[in-house]
């Protein structure tokens, strides 16, 4: 398990208590799981993502990720409509482990409320959460 100081925690995303991240831009947002989350899960072997066009509220489960015989739910950091999903993860789920904020992104949504990401945690607040 990585120490907090070893985690990749970029400044340009917002974080949730369920360890998802969201990167908003122009009324849309990309979403994935944090470096901490992927480290907790271990080697990811499968990512199940929602249908394009479906809508979810903040906190609803939008998919699952499977690692070491464990299936974990994924939760919406903010509400919105699914515009696209990262289909590359079908072939290469290990991107979530290696590059959780870049190639390992999971979904792109149209934000239900453009300001909703503002209420989520900054990098510093998230580090405080991880420190417990």
């Amino acid at each position, binding site marked *: *398990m990585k120490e907090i100081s070893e985690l990749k925690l970029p400044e340009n995303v917002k974080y949730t208590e*369920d360890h998802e991240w969201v990167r908003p831009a122009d009324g849309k947002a990309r979403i994935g799981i944090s470096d901490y989350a992927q*480290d907790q899960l*271990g080697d990811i072997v499968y990512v*199940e993502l929602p249908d394009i066009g479906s809508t979810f509220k903040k906190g609803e489960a939008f998919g699952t990720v499977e690692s*070491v*015989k*464990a*299936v974990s739910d994924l939760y919406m950091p903010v509400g919105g409509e699914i515009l696209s999903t990262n289909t590359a993860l079908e072939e290469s789920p290990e991107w979530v482990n290696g590059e959780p904020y870049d190639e390992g992104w999971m979904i792109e949504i149209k934000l239900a409320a453009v300001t909703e990401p503002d209420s989520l945690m900054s990098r510093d607040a998230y580090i405080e959460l991880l420190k417990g």
Partner: protein
Amino acid sequence: MNQKIKTDPWFCIELPVTEYHEALAIQHRLLNARINRVIDKEMALLLEHFPVFTIGRRRGMENLTVSADFLKKENISVVQIERGGDITFHGPGQIICYPIVHLRSMHLTVVDFVTALEEVMIQTVADWGIGAVRNQMNRGIWIKNCKLGSIGIAVRRGVSFHGFALNVNTALKPFDWINPCGLAGVKMTSMKQVLSKPPDLNRVYKNVKRHLQDVFDIELIKKTLVDLPFS
């Protein structure tokens, strides 16, 4: 975790041989009670199932090698569920442990938790002189190329459910009708087969409980479902 942290006791709920759907409903109720903190303790359900095949979340029937008609004749149903892993068989004589555990409260990652469940099974069978090990090919516990115990968990809102299945005296024949864990050529075994005689199931339950306490550094407190604050 390197750091040893003293944790709260866990509730231990022992059930008789239970129909799969009924046990699943109980798991979901306890899971929701743990997520909502109606129950603020970790829990372990211990039980056996009536014969059933279960399939992990993203798998199909491809690793079932007999027909649906055949299973109907044998009176065994097939249930698809939300845990990880592929197809497996549950039946009487197989000890099931479903820990319902808030992983972060226990300072456990998913990987640590799966490894710890394997350790509980390894230490349990070691009490009977059986040297089971982990295998790179697949999680669970193994004796050479034979699998003695299986693992499949799910995590919802940070709380794990489902768990492990240890073959004590269970019938092995139904495993011939599947590719266990989706692995062709894998044979299942049982403590009975390894020891060439059936171990006392109640003693194995006691071993499991002792090693749950040792491995997770907790104390188990016996509870029944009616003791618990959930409906």
